[in-house]
């Protein structure tokens, strides 16, 4: 295959590490960015793409998807995705990790998260070092919390030695039980099994203590409650190696949305109170939350066209990740630079991959984005393999116009 001519994205607004985007251009040769800035010009023989004033941003690094659903991920501007270990073949062996790591190439790089325990059972440690060397970028407990404190302690100390970040699900399993909603007026009215929102803070409190004890790096994939965020904030202040993520569902929606038993709003953790939703927005603004991820989990009718309690949790989130994060920019919660730190820079750093920022020498994973372009989310017309979005029929703004993985156009 003949190498592609160098790529020049001109007349755009470049997303930097901070501040407002600067007008300029970006050049790539091979799979690398070789120049970017105001004074960069296209050269003869370049493939020139006129961004017409659109944003030139790093491709998104999605820390936590449950399916390698390329059309949806590419629609959302995602060039790298961390794959949760909860697959039909659990990512608990080096062979499974190696296979997953190759499964998206060349136009989507998949970073497998190794299952912390065998079969995600929560008791016996999986072969974490072998999986690391097979390409796992982090370790994850999957959809569930590890209930046994001794196991979690051993996991964190082992991962501290291996220098692998542990991505965990923060919900005390005993308190959460079979809950499908957060305890409160809405769950009471609907008669849905519910658990107090404190189930999250309980899990976080224990895991923070163990992370502090072992020196491990800990990432809570989703922190969705005021009390949970307070604990993370305080732990960060005393130097614990902790980071926190969230998906747009928990800063856009509250449990009012489950009111008509719509299973597309059945999520894990469940939607919270309005007070908690506001706390998530504040935590995104003040830096307590480091990552916004899609949690992409396409689910067909066989999982969703069921009574609320019987439906599987999860949402197809890849396509709405970017526009809903940009809504935070429009609302003045964060600026554009921070939006892309949350969507790309921070998750890349967490996974220790050389991506997520526009820089000379970096992989040319680049998205051209019209941040204002309006469109309507429609569950019947999604790129995803299933249309289970809680944002169905909602108007959003922000659309990827072009996407490049390693300098090669995608899609």
């Amino acid at each position, binding site marked *: 295959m003949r190498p592609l001519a160098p790529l020049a994205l001109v007349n755009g607004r470049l997303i930097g590490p901070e501040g407002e985007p600067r007008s300029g251009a970006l050049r790539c040769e091979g799979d690398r960015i070789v120049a970017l800035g105001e004074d960069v010009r296209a050269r003869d023989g370049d493939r020139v793409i006129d961004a017409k004033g659109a944003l030139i941003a790093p491709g998104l690094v999605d820390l936590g998807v449950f399916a390698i659903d390329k059309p949806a991920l590419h629609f959302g501007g995602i060039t790298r995705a961390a794959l949760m270990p909860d697959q039909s073949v659990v990512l608990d062996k080096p062979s499974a990790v190696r296979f997953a790591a190759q499964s998206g190439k060349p136009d989507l790089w998949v970073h497998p998260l190794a299952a912390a325990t065998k079969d995600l059972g929560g008791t016996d440690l999986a072969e974490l070092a072998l999986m690391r060397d097979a390409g796992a970028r982090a370790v994850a407990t999957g959809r569930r919390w590890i209930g046994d404190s001794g196991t979690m302690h051993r996991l964190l100390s082992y991962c501290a030695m291996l220098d692998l970040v542990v991505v965990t699900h923060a919900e005390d399993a005993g308190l959460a039980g079979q809950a499908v909603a957060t305890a409160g007026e809405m769950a009471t009215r*609907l008669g849905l099994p519910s658990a107090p929102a404190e189930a999250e803070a309980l899990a976080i409190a224990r895991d923070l203590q163990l992370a502090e004890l072992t020196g491990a790096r800990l990432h809570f994939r989703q922190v969705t409650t005021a009390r949970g965020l307070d604990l993370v904030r305080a732990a960060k202040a005393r130097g614990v190696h902790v980071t926190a993520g969230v998906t747009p569902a928990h800063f856009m929606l509250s449990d009012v949305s489950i009111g008509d038993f719509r299973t597309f709003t059945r999520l894990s953790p469940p939607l919270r109170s309005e007070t908690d939703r506001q706390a998530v927005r504040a935590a995104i603004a003040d830096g307590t939350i480091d990552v916004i991820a899609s949690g992409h989990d396409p689910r067909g009718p066989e999982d969703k*066209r069921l009574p609320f*309690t*019987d439906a599987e949790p999860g949402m197809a989130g890849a396509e709405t990740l970017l526009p809903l994060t940009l809504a935070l920019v429009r609302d003045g919660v964060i600026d554009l630079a921070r939006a892309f730190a949350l969507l790309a820079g921070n998750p890349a750093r967490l996974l220790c991959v050389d991506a997520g920022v526009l820089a000379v020498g970096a992989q040319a994973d680049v998205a051209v984005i019209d941040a204002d372009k309006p469109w309507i989310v429609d569950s019947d017309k999604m790129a995803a393999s299933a249309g289970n979005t809680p944002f169905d029929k909602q108007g959003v703004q922000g659309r990827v116009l072009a996407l490049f993985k390693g300098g090669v156009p995608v899609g």
Partner: protein
Amino acid sequence: MTSPEPSPSGRYPAGSAAFPHRDLTGLAGLAPWEILFLLDEAEQWVELNRQPQKRVDRLAGLTIINAFFENSTRTLLSFEIAGKRLGADVVNMQVAQSSVKKGETLIDTAMTLNAMHADAMVIRHQSSGAVRLIAEKVDCPVLNAGDGQHEHPTQGLLDALTIRKAKGDFGGLTVTICGDILHSRVARSNIHALTTLGADVRVCAPPALMPADIEAMKVAAFHDFDAALKGADVVMMLRLQQERMSGQFIPSPREYRHLYGLTMDRLSLAKGDALVMHPGPMNRGVEIDSNVADLAGRSAITTQVEMGVAIRMACLDVLTRRSRKVEGWA
């Protein structure tokens, strides 16, 4: 039987405006006059059911499917009798005999029933919201016979009718509901009906069986049964499921009785003429003592069963008026 006339009392509008809903999936959000309309409609059936000749042909030729995905004897029987007394062809489908056990989804089952051109479906299911889900998919009126811990609207209506028969009006009445509020669809439907009709509702349960933020449903919450009983006009006891009495929620049945059993002594805390109710089946000697349950002139437990058939006849009649092209409803 004559076709419905505007209420002589003028409490609700004429024709279908009195109950403009295709389905009855819950009592939440119903207007007071909509509930009163159904109660008034039931009165004629209370009378009919007391006659030796109990059958009319109002729903003749109509097919009513009672699809019960959760075990039931009493409610199923009540709906079956209601349909048959109105002259409808009633078929019962119970989960033990159904293909749900073979892996067919709920929606598929509903669509299958729908294709058989039922004129109304009565559905009970163990999951909250399941009946509404089915109602969205089928073409005929759907009547909720209990969905999970969400609602059991005909129970709420029959209890309201029972109370009205004994007490006349709802304004100023204090109704104490005691038991497993958390898991009770009966409690929820009663709360909706009684608060909508103007009664003061108290709910009483140990903390583990009390739902969060229940006060948002315009009720007063009590853990102390004696306090909850003081001055009550109606005492409604809920059944406590056996599996919740074995340590998980309640240490033991006798400990539950110690704190929450309705004894003669406790009943004396309520008003002298307080009505005793229970949706059945009862755990005698646990949530209610036998001498209270059988107290002549005070216990309305068998009246509740009687009102149940009448209410269900009223609901089946009203919900099928559109398809029967009844004047003012077509």
